[in-house]
Each structure stands twice: as C-alpha cells, then as structure tokens.
C-alpha cells in the first residue's frame, strides 16, 4: 500500500512581467487576515492553498500581528475586513479579535461551519447584535447532499457543515453560503435556484448563496488538473477600469504572519509577497500567475 503524502507546490509566476496585464492600485478599501495561516480542521480536495489539520507552512497569526495590521489599516481608512484561513475559528483568540475588528469596521468570516456548535452560534449572535458594523459569516458547502459535497470536502463534512448552518439559523443568523463549482453544471441557473431552496430548507430566513469557480492550483491541481500555461488569456498593459474595479488586487490586501501579500489566492505564490506593512504594499500589481485568469476571465471575486 502506498501512502499519498500531501504535496504543496508553490506556483511560480508563469507570465513574464513585461507581458503581464497591470492592475493599478486605487485605494486600500479591504484588508484580509490569513488568521490561521494554512491550518484547517479539514483538507478539501479542491483547496487552492492546500490547507489541512497538520498544514502549518503558513503560520497562524499572533494576536500582536493582527492588532498591528488592524491599527495600520484603520489609520489608512480601510472600509472593511475579512478573516480567512484555513479555518479562522481554530484561532484561540478568534472571538476577541473579531470583536476588536468590529469596533473599527465591518467583518466577514470565511468558515467551513464545522466548529459552529450551539455555544459558538450564541456567541456569534451576541457579537452580531453588539456590533455597530455588519458581522457576516460565510459558510462553505459544496453540495446539496453528502454524495455531492463529501468527495471534495471530506467524509462526514456535509452533516457537520449543515449542522453548523442549522445552529446559526436557530439563533436567527443567516450566513452567506458559498459553493465552489467543483462539477460541471453546478453554477447553472437551475442549480442556483435549487441550492437557494435547499438553504431555505436548512432554516435560513434570508438565504444567500454565492457560487465560485474553481481555482486550479494547490490541491485542486492534483484532483483534476492545473492551468494550461500556454493559453493566452492576457495582454500587456493596464487592464480596463471596469475590470480593475472588480479585481481584489486593485483595492485589497492580504496580511499574514509573514507580511502583506497581494490576495488570498496567491498565498503560495513566490513573488506575491509585497512588503511588511500595508502602506508599502499599495502598489500596482502585475498579473503574472495563471490563477489570475480565474479572476480576469471567469469573473471570480472573493468579496461577499
């Protein structure tokens, strides 16, 4: 029997800087925190940054690092904040950090929902009610059945995730459900309306479902295939204004324990680390990675 070890291949820029499209930097509106680094309680087969229970190549952020970036972001007039991972709820100071962020601006947390038991749902509700700003939870679920979801997110996850969603519904919260289109046709109009009906049946009073295209990097490149680097999807020079506005890299940055990165997708990309401070990271971005194609061509936006 062979044991398949997780392989993480950092993906180098495949596009020459002189040939790459350029995204001008408009303003720092959003800051993403890679709160738990690559640590997650599950190991999804389509995870574009290959997170997992033993995956610590990008370390968890310390409370001091989070607070330092939060303070810098507030000084710069940042509009809103996101917690991502890995699974942000694994952070031992998750709730106090969430409260601190909500004191200065709106916060969205990207979670798989598995750690949301009755007590955590109550805490989320308390925080939601106490905050001046929006506290939005985004729960990932990749199918309307265990048969559809579990092959990509792991055995038993459908039940665990839907239980978490039901706990949130019980306390009157209505998280946004995000669905990765890991099978052809999942993003069709019919599938979208079925999914919406499905989350209503889970108890969500104000259902909202966000579909997202696959990113063919990280573990997904092993599950199916990577990008075809020969495909010419780009042209050099500044991108059009409307496209720039839609792209995260024109107005957002990702902060990690190691420094500031371009965006949550390029966490493993050599060359995507910009600087140690947000101020120094407010620069135009050359779209040098194949994964940028998914945002540019397929219209992916990590925003809620």
């Amino acid at each position, binding site marked *: 029997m062979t044991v398949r070890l997780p392989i993480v291949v950092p993906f180098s820029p495949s596009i020459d800087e002189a040939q790459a499209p350029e995204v001008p930097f408009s303003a720092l*509106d959003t800051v993403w925190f890679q709160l738990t680094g690559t640590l997650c309680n599950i190991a999804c087969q389509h995870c574009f940054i290959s997170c997992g229970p033993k995956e610590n190549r990008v370390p968890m952020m310390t409370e001091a690092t989070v607070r330092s970036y939060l303070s810098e972001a507030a000084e710069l*007039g*940042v*509009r*809103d904040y996101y917690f991502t991972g890995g699974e942000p709820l694994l952070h031992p100071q998750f709730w106090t950090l969430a409260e601190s962020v909500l004191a200065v*601006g709106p916060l969205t947390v990207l979670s798989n929902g598995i750690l949301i038991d009755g007590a955590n749902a109550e805490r989320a509700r308390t925080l939601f009610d106490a905050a001046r700003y*929006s*506290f939005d939870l985004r729960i990932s679920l990749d199918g309307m059945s265990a048969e559809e979801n579990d092959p990509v997110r792991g055995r038993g996850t459908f039940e665990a995730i839907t239980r978490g969603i039901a706990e949130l519904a019980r306390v009157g919260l*209505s998280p946004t459900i995000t669905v990765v289109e890991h099978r052809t046709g999942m993003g069709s109009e019919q599938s979208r309306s079925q999914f919406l009906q499905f989350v209503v049946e889970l108890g969500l009073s*104000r259902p909202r479902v966000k579909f997202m295209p696959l990113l063919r990097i990280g573990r997904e490149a092993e599950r199916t295939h990577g990008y075809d680097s020969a495909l010419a999807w780009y042209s050099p020079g500044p991108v059009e204004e409307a496209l720039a506005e839609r792209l995260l890299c024109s107005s957002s940055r990702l902060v990690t324990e190691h420094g500031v990165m371009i965006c949550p997708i390029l966490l493993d990309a050599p060359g995507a680390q910009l600087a140690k401070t947000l101020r120094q990271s407010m620069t135009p971005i050359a779209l040098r990675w194949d994964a940028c194609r998914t945002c540019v061509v397929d219209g992916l936006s990590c925003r809620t």
Partner: protein
Amino acid sequence: MSDINRYAVFGGIYNNYLALTAVLDDAERRGAQETYCLGDLGGFGPHPDRVFSILQERGVMVMQGNYDHSIGNDLEDCGCGYSDPRDNHYAALSYAYTRAKTSARWRPYLRGLPSVLRRRWDQQRVLMAHGSPRKVNEFLWESSSSDRFLSRLLDEHEADILLVTHSGIPWQRQVERNRLVVNVGAIGRPANDGRTEVWYALVTVTGGRARAELIPVAYDHLRLASEMRAEGIPEEFAITIETGWWTTCLEILPAKERARGRY
C-alpha cells in the same frame, strides 16, 4: 451672508412621481429653501416621463445618477453596480421598462445633468454625490462603512458634509471633526423597514454646524402599486411598494441591513 439654511435633499425617484410630489410638499411645509435631487430619476415604478415636469416646475436642483447616465446615453445596462445574477435579473427588467418608456426628448436633459454638486452652506463645504464621491454606483451602507473610511472620503474629496443616495436606505453619521455624512435614502421605494413611507433628508446649517433630519413621507402608495400592475411591471416590485419590504435586489445588502428586512 446667505439667509438660506434649510435644505431638502432626496434621491432615487425611480419614476415614483406620486412620492416626488408628496416629498416636495412636505419639504415646503417644513420651510426648505432649496431642494436637491441626487439622481436616479427612473427605474422600478411606472410612467417615467411624469417626473421631469414636476422637477422643473418646482425648481429642484438635480444631479445625475447611474440610471440617468444610462438612459440619457441610451446604454444597454443601468450601471446599478449589482454583482449577483438575481439582483441583475430584476435590475434589467426595470431598466428595460424605463428605457422603453422614457421619451427621447428627455435624453439630452439626463445626459447633461452634473455628476457631482458642490456648495458652501454657512462655510461648510458640501459635496453631493450619487453613490459615493469616487464612484457613481458605489453603495454606502451604514453597517459596512467604517468611520475611518468615511473620514478618508471626506478628506480626499475636501468636504465637511457629504450627501449621497443610491443604496436606498437612509442613515447619517457624524464623523471626526464634526463632519457629517448622510445617505438620504430613496423616495422611489420604501426603505425595507416594513413601512410604506419613503425617506428624504432635511439639512439645517446654523452657526457652522450641520444637522440632518431623516423624514418619512406617506403618499398614495396603493395607487402607485395599481399603476405598476397596469403597466406590467413585475409583481415583486408592486409588493415592495405595498408592504415596505424589499423583495428584489437583496443580495447586495450587508448582513445587518439584511437582517432587518423580511427576505
């Protein structure tokens, strides 16, 4: 020094000529000396052509919203700024109706409206924008606009008072150095609060300080709903007029505003 210190400011008429008249009457009763419309004359409601003469006869100062830009230039899309397919579906239906029913003679007027208005009210630098000062279709919601972000907008755009519309739910906030940001809401449809009234802002500036009052106004909403149905406008829109709850374009709402609504 000007004697004028009371200003009525509204936005998002969305063809609702009945609410427009009611709001202008209310503002007059309350002693507003100047009246401003922050754009989006069309959309949602019936009979687009009816608002133009009212605005002109009542001397309203009007600026351009995304809808006015799109109708004025006969564009394919309202430029509303939604990102979700369901939101865009309903936005497209209402845009197609307004585009088809707005007389071509009004297009030059809509095209020519200013995209921003600046005033001095008792030494206060006033900036009126449709969505935000930096983007016509940016949504400024109460729960998703941090204080620091609003301060930054005021700094970058050199204003002490910022007045916007576009998102359709009114709110106001005092930010550092006594500066004021007001989203005046919309008078074309209710504010997703279960009330059938629509909202506008009355801004009073005295002694170098600005104060805004957000005012609900009742109008013949049942007549509007009935006219909408007669015009074949989607039933979902008429229900919103009758109940005060939004039934469409909900995906764009931040969590807090969404939680206050019914859907």
